[in-house]
């Protein structure tokens, strides 16, 4: 009698094989979906570069559009305008957002924190065109469009982003730092300004940069507040100021191929700024996380 073991077939068959095939199919689908998303990004960026780069030149960045919209002009008016509008918006949103975040993490009683957070998150989710209509009703009706109105509209878009980002990083500042400072007899406000904010600085800057990148490309809040502008470079925020997003929007709706060309080049400028800013924010975030030991 020879010792014949049970007939074991180690090759998967039947049910197991089917389960493995299903598994393989699902894994492939997941991979394909991710590839698809990356491919769309690449296609968008590549088509903006391919169509925008030929007309992008020093001249394009530094000269005003031609008087009658013919080819050969530049977008310096829109670049200056966007820089000023977004700058002013940041100057409004950053202090308010950070202050609100400090209140929520340092002072607010627990039962207030959640409702305020919900309101801030809801504000972040509101359609930006509604914000544009709001500022239009508040500042433009009965007056006129102005760069300032655009800035305030953008600051409302930025506010929840800044507040949320600041709150998240304030929460990961180690409690021991706070307690050490308070134990030394340092008052609350000086603890916040002298110990907590410097520790959280990197994270707050990250949030601010991301908010700026978002605001720079926002079009809807500016349509109602600063969209009827001249071709000249203007630094007067009490009047409508040219800006890149509205310029792209208006040019893209025209049937004129030369304007489309300018729109692509302007889009390249905008997308380059936005993507570089988000990359920088990401790098900053990684650094400040490391510093905070997270």
């Amino acid at each position: 009698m020879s010792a014949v073991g049970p007939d074991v077939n180690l090759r998967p068959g039947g049910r197991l094989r089917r389960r493995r095939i299903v598994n393989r199919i699902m894994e492939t689908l997941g991979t394909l979906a991710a590839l698809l998303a990356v491919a769309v990004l690449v296609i968008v960026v590549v088509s903006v570069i391919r169509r925008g780069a030929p007309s992008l030149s020093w001249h394009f960045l530094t000269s005003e559009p031609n008087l009658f919209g013919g080819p050969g002009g530049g977008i310096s008016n829109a670049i200056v305008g966007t820089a000023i509008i977004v700058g002013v918006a940041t100057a409004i949103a950053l202090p308010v957002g950070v202050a609100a975040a400090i209140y929520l993490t340092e002072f607010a009683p627990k039962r207030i924190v959640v409702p305020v957070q919900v309101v801030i998150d809801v504000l972040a989710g509101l359609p930006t065109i509604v914000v544009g209509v709001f500022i239009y009703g508040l500042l433009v009706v009965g007056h006129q469009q102005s760069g300032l109105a655009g800035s305030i509209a953008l600051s409302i878009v930025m506010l929840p982003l800044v507040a949320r980002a600041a709150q998240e990083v304030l929460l990961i500042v180690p409690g021991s730092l706070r307690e050490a400072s308070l134990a030394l007899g340092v008052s609350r406000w000086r603890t916040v300004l002298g110990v907590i904010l410097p520790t959280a600085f990197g994270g707050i800057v990250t949030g601010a940069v991301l908010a700026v990148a978002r605001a720079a490309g926002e079009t809807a809040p500016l349509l109602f507040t600063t969209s009827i502008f001249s071709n000249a470079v203007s630094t007067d925020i009490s009047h409508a100021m040219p800006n890149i997003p509205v310029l792209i929007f208006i040019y893209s709706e025209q049937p004129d191929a030369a304007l489309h060309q300018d729109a692509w080049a302007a889009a390249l400028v905008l997308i380059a700024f936005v993507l570089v800013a988000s990359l920088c924010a990401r790098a900053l975030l990684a650094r400040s996380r490391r510093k905070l030991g997270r």
Partner: protein
Amino acid sequence: LDRVGDGLFHVVTAGAAVLCIVVVGAIVWKVFDLASLAISYNGLHFFTTTVWDPVHNHYGALLFLYGTAVTSFVALLVATPLSIAIGLYLSELAPRGVRGIIASLVEMLAAVPSVVLGLWGILVLGPFMAQHVDPVLHDTLGFLPMFSGEVGQNGLSLITAVAILTIMIVPIVSSISRELFLQVPNDLEEGAFALGATRWEMVRGVILPSARSGIAAAMILGLGRALGEAIAVTQVIGGATAFHSSWFAPADTLASKVAGNYQSASTKLEASSLIYLAAILLVIGLVVNVIAQIIVRRFDPTRAK
């Protein structure tokens, strides 16, 4: 001095928090204030009228409600499985080395300004859809009313708007899903593997059930984004004058109607009626976001433990 400083600091920061709430309140008040003329003129009839005729002062929102509903829900329907798959890939499948890079790239897609996406939509995606995608849909699914219509030349149509919206909400939903999947406790995943489950069985049996409510919240947030997107949709949807059952025809959403007609409104009533549309959008936006927040907070997996 310290006590004064503390008090002052407390008041100033509390003021900033109050300001955030005031802004939301002021938005609601002002938008309804501006729309009040149209609300009293059109009343609730507004919701059941498809005509938008400024010359004869007939205004109705139904066409735009339809456009908003179809574009947003179809985009969400397409984007959700894609986003979940991407989230799963990024949290479970991707090799460690490329994981971070691909996650960053997907988030970069969300950073592309909508006006740039819209420009690309008009000049690249629209023509591509009209030449390559729409005819295929027409030929294979032409028995359905939405695909039976004639395919346009330039692709400025409802279906192109759906495609653009899908591109916009996929990165949002997928990065939220990824975070959710990463939060699922490892013990559970390993337990499933130890029982001999394949990776897909582990995903279906462990990850998806425990992330279910989070996925719902992510979907609602994506829906909110799609409902409210004005610029890119305005650029590609073409503008509607009448109701079309075909998705290959131009249409309009609430947001695109407001954004597209902002300068051409010639009478107070027309302007107010446009803002009435914005007010509807505002209410929808508020409701959608509050629901998402409630779900997020009730089922937050980090706090459930």
